[in-house]
């Protein structure tokens, strides 16, 4: 009876269990090996390369104490993408529109996004020149809009 049952099975069982063992093994080994090679060798991360030197003379060297215009800061915040700063992106960052820091500092909710109107109202503050030694001078403060 047992032989009859076995004889009636048309499945290619050996191929099945060989594949079950070999395929995941090989897949894991190949992917792990490739990742090891990729991460362990010297590599160049895009974005690190120097930008072209300006023909205008002044550009080409960053000026740490300069603050972008509010419009430029807002565009930079959009272009920079999500913030990865500690605090889930609600802390200060360099990509935020100038003036948002003032608004977010006065929030009671702790959520900058809830106070977007305040941030907008406070934007004229960005036009105020930063005092020498002001820690936020070269780092326009953050608001959640930059993460979008």
């Amino acid at each position, binding site marked *: 009876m047992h032989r009859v049952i076995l004889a009636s099975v048309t499945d290619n069982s050996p191929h099945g269990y060989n594949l079950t063992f070999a395929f995941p093994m090989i897949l894991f080994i190949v992917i792990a090996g490739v*990742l090891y090679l990729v991460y362990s060798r010297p590599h160049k*991360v895009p*974005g*690190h390369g120097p930008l072209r030197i*300006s023909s205008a003379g002044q550009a080409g060297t*960053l*000026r740490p104490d300069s603050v*972008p215009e509010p419009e430029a800061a807002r565009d930079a915040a959009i*272009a920079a993408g999500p913030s990865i700063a500690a605090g889930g992106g609600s802390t200060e960052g360099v990509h935020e529109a100038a003036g948002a820091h003032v608004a977010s500092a006065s929030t009671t909710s702790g959520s900058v996004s809830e106070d977007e109107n305040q941030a907008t109202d406070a934007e004229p503050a960005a036009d105020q020149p930063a005092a020498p030694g002001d820690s*936020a001078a070269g780092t326009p403060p953050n608001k959640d809009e930059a993460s979008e």
Partner: protein
Amino acid sequence: MAETSQAPSLTPEQEEAAFYHEAALNSAWTGARLLIASLSFAFGAFIFAFFYLKSLNSHGMWYPPKFTGPQKGLGTTIMVLIVVSALVQWAGLTRIKAAQRSAWMGAAVVALVLGVVAACLQLFQLVDLPFWPGASGFASVFVGTAPVFVVIALGAMVYLEILIMRCRAIPQISFVEQPPTFAEAFAVQRFQAALSGFTLVWNYLAVVAVVMWVLFYLVH
């Protein structure tokens, strides 16, 4: 350290900002490659199912003689659209490296449209299949693989659209010469890192589309 670190006498806040900026660049690079590894495991599961069921061929039900497979013309069109989309975007990337921002924008929009059309065609094919999911072993694998692929492809297109909107916010001049402030310089560099990661992943998905096409329309 980022190129911006060469600026003299940074305050602690500026140094911290540069640190997080550096982390963002590296995470884009690392994350894109980890994503590809993760996707390889995901698609590997379907490829395993394909070869396992094909090899087992239980009761001859892998691909029965009278079984009608998915529409070959539609499948070929989907694969070609995705490959062309990846090629166009890659060509645009070479242009933006040559400081031609508008050239990449145009190429990216074309790539976006091609990718979305491919995804729509894939959805159309799925609702118009000439077989039921349980009709055969092949049918079950196809019905499992195609939706997963189309969701991932649509996700990639959403990210491409985000990149296009981010690029719109960057002035053309920022791709030519060093922006004068940290915020603008960081924005350009982070965009470059994100675009590089996206290109890698989208090219990978194009290769996956070709492999799937070979399996489902040629090998079966």
